């Protein structure tokens, strides 16, 4: 693919913050989706910014039901299409990281396990942004959120990021991929590939949030790129359980380069023993690099 499809199925006028990574993620994902598609969307930023009654940013048929049922609603749509003999229309389910890895995990697991022909797209901005930046299961280690603040007894979030891609792969999902808005063509190609596959597929797109992470609006892409270049967000794809594509990293950057640009990690550079946490984060990146053989 040299040029992205011009048609915008996620149009302007949406109410996302300036520099929103999620809005770009959705716009790119829609470029990978066929015209004959139906999309579901979980409650969250994406739903709120795009469908203030009586307006909608979506050009394809779209439904929002609840926070935790995007995958189940999509599965129901897929069953309805099947019952009506429609084997052309594709079904896309969308949700943020909280809707996906936390509250919606049961429905997602069921959708995977039953083998519905649904492409699930997780827009991962690593916290509950719509409710005011609270910690989710996808929040990285040591990140400050409004429910995991640093303090005398705390270095921010105490847990490491839940690996939803591995969970998807463990279900035997045929196509599982991570992507980043820093690489638009890759996002589009992965969503396209996912939706072309018969059966469930999962794409998790890393979408930095200037408001929640605390960086300048203009730096959204730079931050997204640094997450990849430090190996904190490995970009790869799995087909039938095998890794078939990895974005290799030339001259992997130390994690400080990524962390220092964001307010959510600021405390690590100020607090006593903050460097200990930074080392732990570096160890996560090193492990990622080793697991996925990221270094070129």
């Amino acid at each position: 693919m040299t040029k992205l499809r011009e048609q915008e199925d996620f149009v302007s006028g949406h109410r996302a913050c300036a520099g929103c990574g999620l809005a770009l993620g959705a716009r790119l994902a829609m470029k990978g989706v066929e015209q004959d598609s139906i999309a579901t969307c979980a409650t969250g930023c994406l739903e709120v910014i795009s469908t203030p009654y009586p307006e909608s940013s979506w050009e394809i048929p779209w439904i929002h039901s609840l926070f935790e049922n995007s995958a189940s609603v999509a599965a129901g749509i897929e069953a309805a299409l099947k019952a009506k003999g429609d084997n052309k229309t594709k079904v896309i389910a969308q949700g943020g990281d909280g809707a996906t890895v936390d509250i919606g995990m049961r429905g997602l697991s069921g959708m995977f396990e039953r083998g519905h022909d649904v492409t699930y797209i997780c827009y991962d901005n690593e916290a509950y942004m719509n409710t005011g930046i609270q910690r989710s299961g996808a929040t990285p280690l040591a990140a400050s959120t409004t429910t995991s603040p640093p303090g005398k007894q705390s270095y921010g979030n105490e847990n490491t990021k839940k690996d939803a891609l591995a969970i998807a792969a463990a279900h035997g999902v045929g196509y599982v991929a991570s992507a980043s808005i820093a690489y638009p063509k890759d996002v589009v190609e992965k969503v396209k590939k996912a939706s072309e596959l018969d059966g469930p597929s999962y794409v998790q797109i890393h979408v930095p949030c200037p408001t929640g992470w605390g960086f300048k609006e203009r730096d959204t892409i730079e931050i997204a790129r640094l997450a990849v270049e430090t190996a904190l967000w490995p970009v790869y794809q799995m087909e039938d359980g095998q890794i078939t594509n990895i974005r290799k990293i030339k001259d992997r950057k130390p994690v400080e380069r990524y962390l220092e640009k964001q307010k959510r990690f600021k405390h690590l550079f100020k607090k006593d023993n903050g460097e200990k946490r930074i080392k732990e984060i570096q160890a996560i990146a090193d492990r990622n690099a080793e697991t996925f053989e990221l270094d070129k």
Partner: protein
Amino acid sequence: MVERRVMEGSHAVAHAVRLCAPDVVSAYPITPQTHIVEKISQFVADGDLKSEYMRVESEFSAMSASVGSSAAGARTFTATASQGLMLMSEVLYNASGLRLPIVMSVANRAMGAPINIWNDHSDSMGVRDAGWIQLYAEDNQEALDMTIQAYKIAENQDVMLPAMVCMDGFILTHTYEPVSIPKKEEVQEFLPEFDPEVKLDPQNPVTLGTVGFPSDYMEIRHEQYQAMENARDIMPDIFKEFEEKFGRKQHSLIEEYKTEDAEIIIVSLGSIMGTIKEAVDELREDGKQVGAIKIKAFRPFPDQELRDALQNTKAVAVLDKNITLGKKGALYTEMKDTLYQAETQPQMTNYIIGLGGRDIPRQSIKNIVKQTKENLNSPQTREVRFVDLKEEK
């Protein structure tokens, strides 16, 4: 020729579902609903029902998948009970707000704790404000008939609301009774194919489930309120049409039983009506002026019908198989609201019966009538009475 067979209530409902031929059935097993979904799965396995059968991982997903399916323009069925209904409850409101005419059987069962698999109405009464049409069946035949009627009401263009057909767990679901099974062609004539004006369709894309700001939310809710009022208006016609088509006597939103000259009228819903009618017969033989009213539709609530039916009676005994803690039985409080607008108000007593499957013998009904009669002659001491409570005399 109408096929008449002896079968349990669950299977009667499964036959109704087979006849209504939903495109999608999405269900999760829970006692005492299981026989319904098992029988449907057998119909699908045998090719007698051509539905996509989704064996979902929870009731929450059963209802969520139903939302997706119905929004995509497919006729959809599900069934549940008790804890499962509660797990669905968030989605119930959503299905109604999205105006999706899903039909669901509820095999009424008590709510835990303590965990209890037997019948009462705590479950469906707990979601009476979810915006669903609620019908309550007295027997297996009615459970079958109401399932077909529910689709016709729900899918009406002026209604477009989901409907639950409530039937008492075990008492109906697991009990064998003779049932007339309508012919497929006749059901198809009665119930045309589901073809909603608004649906998820790539040929005519639409956005459903938008954010309703304070500027519009109220109007959208009002429209939904109006839809339920529309249901109230069309239901008598649908029952009548059903009666003409299938030759079975159909009452409107309520059924009156020997109420004409009745001084005391018992009001209740569900399978207990059978026992109540028998008790009324015996009391009548003893010369007592007693009648009964069955509530067929709890949502929409039959306000005017009840005012008309109760205008000449002295006392009303309302039998609730549920209790709202801190208040009274759900049916009773609704009845009081209804009768506040009546020209004359009969004396009313609320009897809480049969919680968690406690048996209600005919004698208990007779005792209730006796108590109600006594209340007429003396100042009412207690408005709510738990019937046959071990501690209570």
